């Protein structure tokens, strides 16, 4: 929940939408207020003018008191909106006051527009001295006037109030739409595999993001260079180790050719075994470094059966030494686009592992077949198998299963994976279901070559 909170507040999209919404709401409120006020004032002014005009008409004898009453009454249903007419400084007959409304304005009102309170009701009153010398007062209740003015104001503000939610909705949609390339970019980076250091594509990305992408690409380039350097270093180091190893094994061989006491010879044999192991390790290290180097080797169509046979010829002595029945289960003509040396390395390592970690006196089967667009190489043994929890780790360099007496380099599967990934294929491990005893089934899929 907390994480969701920080994620939301740190989202550019959210912040942009929120600030736009706040600004627009405030602006709309201010605009609404100003609009309301000016509409209100305008309405009041208009009504004041109305009072003046009515007064002028009465003065010019165009309107009589009674007519006005009739006219206003028929037009306005609301009795409170009626105008009140009254002669001020009226000493004679009482026909001056507006009979209908029944108000009596004070007589000491000055000429012009003013607001007066009569019996706790506010009136807007216009007082004028007519040509006959009498002073005429025309009044209207303030509440009525205000009601009309308010109506006018509200009508001005109404469209804005209705439009604001629509506007907010549009902003949110728009922000989301405009920031979609950013989300897309983030997803693209997120979905990358750890070894994928191809530069990001800046096509169709907003120009503000381009410098950002450029720096990421720049960094990716440096990472690629660093990775390449590191792999080259491993390759060079392995290569350099060969010379002293060569000298060592030659010296050991020379020593073996001399007269030696029996226990010295036993020691020498042990040393030779160690030397052999070091040689294997160095060779495997070099293979691994090469498998991971970015440069693609010259590729050509390679027939898997031929490679498998090559490998068998190499490993049969090893299989015999462990009394393992090595054979081909299923084989069909399958070609892939690759380098024959790489494919030999892949199959060699898989078969070598199967013999090394399979049961002594057991069975190792190799199958080559086509499945859809894939050329499949399967190697299965009937050894103890690999526990589920270790499946991913066995592809890591130098990772060996615990409590395994065999002295492999721990690099075989890393090499296989390196080569297979470079050839745009896949490696997977599973339990061997063909046998009751379990065992390991390694499956390599490579893009099929069709001539």
């Amino acid at each position: 929940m907390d994480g969701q909170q920080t994620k939301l507040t740190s989202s550019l999209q959210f912040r942009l939408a929120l600030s736009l919404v706040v600004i627009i709401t405030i602006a709309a409120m201010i605009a609404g207020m100003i609009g309301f006020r000016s509409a209100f004032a305008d309405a009041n002014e208009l009504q004041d003018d109305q009072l003046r005009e009515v007064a002028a008409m009465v003065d010019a004898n165009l309107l009589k008191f009674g007519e006005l009453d009739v006219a206003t009454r028929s037009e306005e249903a609301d009795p409170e909106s009626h105008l009140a007419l009254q002669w001020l400084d009226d000493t004679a007959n009482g026909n001056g006051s507006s009979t209908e409304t029944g108000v009596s304005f004070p007589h000491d009102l000055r000429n012009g527009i003013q607001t007066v309170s009569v019996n706790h009701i506010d009136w807007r009153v216009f007082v004028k001295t007519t040509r006959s010398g009498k002073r005429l007062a025309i009044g209207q209740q303030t509440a009525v006037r205000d009601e009309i003015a308010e109506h006018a104001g509200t009508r001005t503000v109404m469209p804005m109030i209705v439009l604001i939610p629509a506007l907010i909705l549009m902003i949110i949609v728009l922000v989301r739409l405009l920031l979609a390339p950013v989300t897309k970019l983030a997803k693209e980076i997120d979905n990358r595999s750890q070894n994928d250091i191809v530069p990001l594509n800046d096509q169709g990305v907003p120009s503000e993001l381009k410098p950002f992408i450029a720096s990421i690409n720049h960094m990716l380039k440096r990472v690629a260079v660093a990775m390449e350097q590191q792999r080259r270093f491993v390759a060079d180091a392995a290569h350099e180790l060969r010379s002293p190893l060569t000298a060592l094994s030659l010296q050991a061989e020379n020593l073996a050719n001399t007269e030696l006491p029996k226990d010295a010879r036993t020691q020498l044999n042990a040393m030779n075994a160690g030397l052999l192991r070091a040689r294997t390790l160095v060779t495997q290290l070099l293979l691994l470094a090469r498998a991971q180097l970015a440069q693609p080797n010259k590729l050509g169509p390679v027939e898997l059966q031929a490679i498998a046979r090559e490998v068998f010829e190499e490993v049969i002595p090893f299989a015999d030494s462990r009394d393992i029945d090595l054979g081909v289960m299923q084989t069909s003509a399958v070609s892939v686009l690759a380098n024959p040396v790489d494919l030999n390395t892949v199959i060699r390592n898989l078969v070598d592992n199967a013999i090394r970690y399979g049961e002594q006196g057991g069975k190792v089967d190799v199958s080559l077949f086509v499945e859809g667009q894939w050329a499949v190489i399967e190697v299965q043994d009937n050894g103890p198998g690999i526990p589920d929890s270790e499946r991913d780790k066995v592809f890591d360099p130098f990772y060996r299963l615990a409590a395994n007496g065999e002295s492999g380099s721990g690099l075989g599967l890393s090499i296989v994976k390196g080569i297979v990934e470079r050839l745009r294929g896949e490696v997977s491990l599973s339990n061997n279901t063909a046998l009751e005893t379990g065992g390991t089934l390694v499956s390599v899929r490579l893009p099929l070559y069709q001539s």
Partner: protein
Amino acid sequence: MRVLLVEDDQMIASAMLHALQSANYATDHVMDGPAALTAAQTHHYDVILLDLGLPKRDGLEVLRGIRGAGNAVPILIVSARDAVETRIAGLDLGADDYVLKPFDMAELLARMRAVIRRKQGHASSTLECGPLSLNLTTREISLRGELIRLSAREFSVMEALLIRPGAILSRQELEDRIYGWHHEVESNAIEFLIHGLRKKLGSEAIKNVRGLGWMVSKPN
């Protein structure tokens, strides 16, 4: 027999010198490219062991120089460079063999012998593998020195398998070598022949590789 050893690594060179002398080769040792070229021009050698990563002039250049001068001396490249391209380049430039470091001295000596033999034109007329010896001229086979009688087809099977011990031959390949193009071959003819051979030479003589074919194991 006189050998020129071109090797810039002192440690490797001294170990090799020791082994070569033990094998009764008279050995000269040089450590860089120009010295190697001079030595090859001024002396006669039966074989040259050439490292590739040399100071001053690279081993491939030395090779080009020697062959360019029309010198046909047997040359074995002994190098840590294992790229296929380098190996091909070396052999194309006229090297007779390519031995990868680290190597076993016994293997190097065997390859030296083979190269010298080839140059001298003594192609062997016998195929040997462990206790088996196959004489191609007399078309006879012997097991631990004892002559074994084989039919012509059985002999052909053994000949095919012994040309390169350790190589796996499929049924199709064996049929192609034994029967003519228009010959009708029974489906189990090869199995029948192999069965007969095992009876005569012992069941260990020919190994069946499940799903691929048959082979004669390389002796260790």
